[in-house]
């Protein structure tokens, strides 16, 4: 359960959230759009995520670090939830959840995907495949475990270690994370 902040803190949080949204809105919309591939739904996704944070109280603490990163992951998680609900509603797996669709379906200058692919290439093949199913494929850890015929615990450890390895890779190259 997410706690409501006291009144004075709520006022600060409102201001922080509004500033955070204004500063990162292009990024947030872009993240939602890349997951959902639908401008209208991406807009709804960002709107609903921020609205929920606004109305229900904050779940951000300065110990968590970057507000932009926090908002990015909030929006991305909301977009992935919508994607999975969409797939469930239609009772067929969405194209991005299919076995053949773990490549990013993005038709824009993809500097960032080259950067991610280079980092993924530094991982072991099995770790790389697991992370790709999560990051590009949008699968849950249970779905990945079923897909790879591996125990859920193994997949969770692999995802956790894999993301930490990617962070180490980026930092070793002087990236400012």
């Amino acid at each position, binding site marked *: 359960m997410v706690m409501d902040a006291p009144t004075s803190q709520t006022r600060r949080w409102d201001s922080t959230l509004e500033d955070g949204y204004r500063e990162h809105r292009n990024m947030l919309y872009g993240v939602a759009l890349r997951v959902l591939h639908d401008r209208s739904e991406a807009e709804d996704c960002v709107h609903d995520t921020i609205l929920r944070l606004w109305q229900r109280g904050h779940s951000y603490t300065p110990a968590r670090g970057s507000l932009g990163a926090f908002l990015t992951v909030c929006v991305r998680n909301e977009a992935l939830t919508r994607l999975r609900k969409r797939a469930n509603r239609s009772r067929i797996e969405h194209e991005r959840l299919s076995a053949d669709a773990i490549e990013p379906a993005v038709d824009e200058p993809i500097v*960032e995907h080259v950067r991610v692919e280079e980092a993924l290439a530094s991982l072991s093949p099995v770790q790389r495949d697991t992370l790709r199913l999560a990051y590009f494929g949008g699968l849950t850890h249970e779905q990945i475990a079923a897909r790879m015929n591996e125990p859920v615990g193994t997949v969770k450890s692999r995802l956790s270690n894999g993301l930490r390895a990617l962070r180490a890779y980026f930092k070793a190259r002087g990236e400012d994370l």
Partner: protein
Amino acid sequence: MTQHIDELAELYALGVLDEEERARVDAHALACDACASRLGEAESTIAFMEQRAPVVPASLDRRMSAVFARPTGGFRISSALVAAAFIVGLLPSFWFWNSARTTQAFDAQREQAVHAMVTSHFAHAQFTPLSPGAPKAKLIYARTGDWVYAVAATGAALTLQAQTPGGSVGLGTLHATGNAGELFVAKAPHAQIFTLSENGREIERVTLPKR
């Protein structure tokens, strides 16, 4: 959640948890700075991976178009182009460009090249000489686009061709200034092989990885 979130931090950031699990992680992170810190690191990794070029508003595009429509005030060396020249190992040649007078069309082409390089991901490959004395030359190319930018350490009138399945397609003559030549092609065929010719004779070629 009284237990530390441990590996759930990375799973949360990757988006593989359901809403209920995420809410538990959020609640714990509010009360535990150590876990909030680990969660923040995972989130910043994902945010870094999600970074994209900013969406430029249409109003700025319109204002910049007005700027580009004005006559240029003469050639000013561009730090981006110096960087590109440095990348391809032609900085000494490039230096001479700064003192050279250039035509407005040439400046416009150079502006196009700079714009292409700063707004898209590019790579470069060196031409392989096919004859003795062929100048050092490289092809800078968009990894996910159509443009190519040929640069050569020579003032000779070299021509650039794309070798397509349908045959050789001429892309133009390198603009020579001092001992350097360059040609930016905004829409080049998606060929793997490009060649440079002098007086109709192919003198070097480069094979690009599949794009």
